[in-house]
C-alpha cells in the first residue's frame, strides 16, 4: 500500500480566548483582569487519506471542521500531535508544499474584489509558475465547463455568488493541485449552481485523481462526491467509514411513506411503534420500519386503509445525520 497523502495522528488544537462580562463595568474590569478560557477545538484526531480519495468531513457548527482544514493547509499551527500532508508539516509553509495544495472557502473570497477574475488568474499563474500553454488550456477548459467564459473580464465584486464561486474554484485548480481542501464550496448557492459545482469537482477528480477533503452542510454534496465520511463532534472523530455503512449506522431501518386519499384523523395504534411523522394535513405519514417488518406492515396498511401511494427508501443521510447530531451518544459504539 502507498504511503498516505494525508497522515494525521493524535492531532490537538486549543484556542485561548478571554471572558468578558457585559456592559461598561465588564469592560472596565476586563481591562485589569482577564479570565482566559481554553477551548479544545480538535481533540486527539487521527486518520489517513490515500491518493485519489474524496473524503467528506461532516459535523455541526463549531465541531472543529474548519479548524482541521486550517491546520491541513498550514494556516494555523497544531497545539500537539502529528500532521503530514504530502510528507510535509503544513505549518512550515514550504513554498513547494504550497504549490501542491489548494483551498476553496465558500464563505470567504480569495479573489481580489476590485479587479476582474482574469487578473487574479494571471497573478496566480505566476505565483504557481504555470506555463502559458498550460494556463491557457486550463482556463479555456474550466471556463467552458463552468459556463463562465464571458465573465472572466468582469470585476469580481459584480459577479453573483454562484459565478464568484465558480471563479474561486478555477483559481484554486489552475496549478493542478495534488490535494484540494473544499470548505463548504456550495454554501448559499441555488440548486442548479450546486449541481454544476458538484459535477465539475467530480469531473476534475476523475481526470486528475487528486485527494479531496470537503466539508459541507449539504448532504447532497457528500452523496454526490464522497467515498468516505468522517464525522466530527465537539472536536473528536465520531465516525470514519463508507457512506453505505454510515446510512446503516442507525440499524437496517427503511423509511416508508404512505399517502392517503383523505386526511386520517383517527389514531392508528399500529403505527405508533414505527415513529410516525404525519404531514400537516394528515394525508401522508412516514414510518421507520426495520427490514423484517417491512412486508407484513406494508400489506396490512395497504389492505386496511385508503392508501393511494406507497414508497420506500433507505434512511436518508440527512435523517441519520440529524439523529446523530441530536444524540451523539449513538456513535459511541462506532468510535474508532
Amino acid at each position: 500500500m502507498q504511503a498516505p497523502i494525508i497522515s494525521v495522528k493524535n492531532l490537538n488544537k486549543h484556542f485561548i480566548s478571554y471572558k468578558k462580562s457585559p456592559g461598561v463595568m465588564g469592560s472596565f474590569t476586563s481591562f485589569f483582569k482577564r479570565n482566559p478560557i481554553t477551548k479544545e477545538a480538535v481533540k486527539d484526531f487521527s486518520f489517513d487519506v490515500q491518493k485519489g480519495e474524496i473524503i467528506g468531513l461532516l459535523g455541526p457548527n463549531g465541531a472543529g471542521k474548519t479548524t482541521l482544514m486550517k491546520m491541513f493547509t498550514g494556516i494555523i499551527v497544531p497545539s500537539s500531535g502529528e500532521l503530514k500532508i504530502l510528507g510535509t508539516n503544513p505549518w512550515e509553509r514550504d513554498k513547494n508544499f504550497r504549490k501542491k495544495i489548494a483551498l476553496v472557502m465558500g464563505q470567504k473570497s480569495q479573489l481580489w474584489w476590485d479587479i476582474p477574475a482574469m487578473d487574479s488568474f494571471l497573478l496566480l499563474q505566476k505565483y504557481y509558475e504555470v506555463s502559458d500553454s498550460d494556463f491557457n488550456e486550463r482556463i479555456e477548459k474550466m471556463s467552458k465547463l463552468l459556463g463562465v467564459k464571458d465573465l472572466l473580464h468582469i470585476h469580481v465584486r459584480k459577479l453573483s455568488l454562484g459565478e464568484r464561486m465558480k471563479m474561486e474554484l478555477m483559481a484554486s485548480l489552475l496549478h493542478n493541485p495534488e490535494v484540494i481542501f473544499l470548505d463548504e464550496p456550495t454554501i448559499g448557492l441555488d440548486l442548479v449552481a450546486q449541481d454544476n459545482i458538484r459535477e465539475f469537482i467530480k469531473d476534475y477528480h476523475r481526470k486528475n485523481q487528486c485527494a479531496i477533503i470537503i466539508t459541507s452542510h449539504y448532504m447532497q454534496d457528500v452523496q454526490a462526491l464522497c467515498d468516505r465520511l468522517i464525522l466530527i463532534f465537539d472536536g473528536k472523530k465520531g465516525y470514519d467509514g463508507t457512506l453505505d455503512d454510515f446510512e446503516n449506522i442507525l440499524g437496517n431501518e427503511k423509511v416508508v411513506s404512505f399517502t392517503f386519499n383523505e386526511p386520517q384523523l383517527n389514531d392508528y395504534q399500529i403505527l405508533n411503534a414505527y415513529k410516525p411523522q404525519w404531514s400537516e394535513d394528515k394525508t401522508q405519514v412516514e414510518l421507520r420500519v426495520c427490514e423484517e417488518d417491512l412486508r407484513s406492515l406494508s400489506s396490512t396498511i395497504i389492505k386496511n386503509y385508503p392508501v393511494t401511494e406507497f414508497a420506500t427508501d433507505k434512511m436518508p443521510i440527512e435523517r441519520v445525520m440529524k439523529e446523530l447530531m441530536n444524540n451523539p451518544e449513538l456513535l459511541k459504539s462506532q468510535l474508532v
Partner: protein
Amino acid sequence: MTEALERNIQKWWITIKVSWVKHTAYRMNFFLQMIGPALVFFFVKYNLWSSIYSADKSMIIKGFNFEQMINYHTWAFIVGMVAQGHGSWNLSDDIRMGRISSYLIYPFNFWEFHTASWLSFQCIQIGIASFTLVCVAAAGVLQLPSLEVMTMGVAYTLFISLFWFTMQYFTGVLAFWLEETWILRVMLNIITYFLSGAIIPLDLYPKWIVDILNYTPFPYLTYYPIKIFMGQGSHITQGFFIILFWTIVFAFLNHRIWKKGIRLYTAAGM
C-alpha cells in the same frame, strides 16, 4: 540570471501590476487622491501663512520670509506624499479579519505581497507628486532646484519612504496582539507630523529640542529632505545612518513579530 530568480522577479512584477490596477480601480477615488491633498494644502497652509505674513510681506520668521515659508511647506507636501504616503491599514485589517489566510496558502509570502503593493503605491505617489510639482512650479509658487539637488532630494526621500514602510509594517503586524491598531497609527502619525517639521519648520523650535530630535529619525523624515530640495542640505550622512539603523531595527522586529505572531494566528472569521 538563474531561472528561480527570474520566476521570482515575475511574481513581484505581476503583484506590482495587479496592485496598480487595484489602486486605480475606482476613478473618482483616484482623482480625489490626486487633487485632495493639494486642495487641503492650499486652502489650509497657504491661507494660514498668507494671513500671518499679511501685515508685513517682508517679515522674516526665524530666517523664513513669506516665499521661503511657502517654499518650505510646498516641499513638505511633496516629501510627505512620497515618503509618508503609505499606511498599513490593509495589512492590519488582513490580520485582524483573518484575510491573511490566502497569503499563507499562495507560494508568495505575505511580506513579499505587501512590499510589492507598496512599491506599486509608491509609483503612483511619485507620479502624483511629480504632477503636483510641475503644477506648482508652473504657477510660480515654487522654483525647481538644479538637477543634481533634485536627484539627491528624490533619492533621499525614497530612502526615507522605505523606512516609513518598515515602520508602518511594524504597526500593522502588531495586529496579531492588538485587536485595533489604528489608534497607535494615528498617534504615530501625529507625533511624526509634529516632530518631523511637517507642520512648522524645526527652526521655529527651541534649539535644545532640535538637538535631541537630531538623534531620532523624526527630523530626517521631512525637515532635512526639504532642506536638501531647498539647496540647504545638512546632516545628510548622519540622517542616512540614523534612518538606516532604524530601518534595520524595524525590519528585524517585523521578522520576529511575524514568526511569533503567526503561531498565535487563529484565522478568525474564516
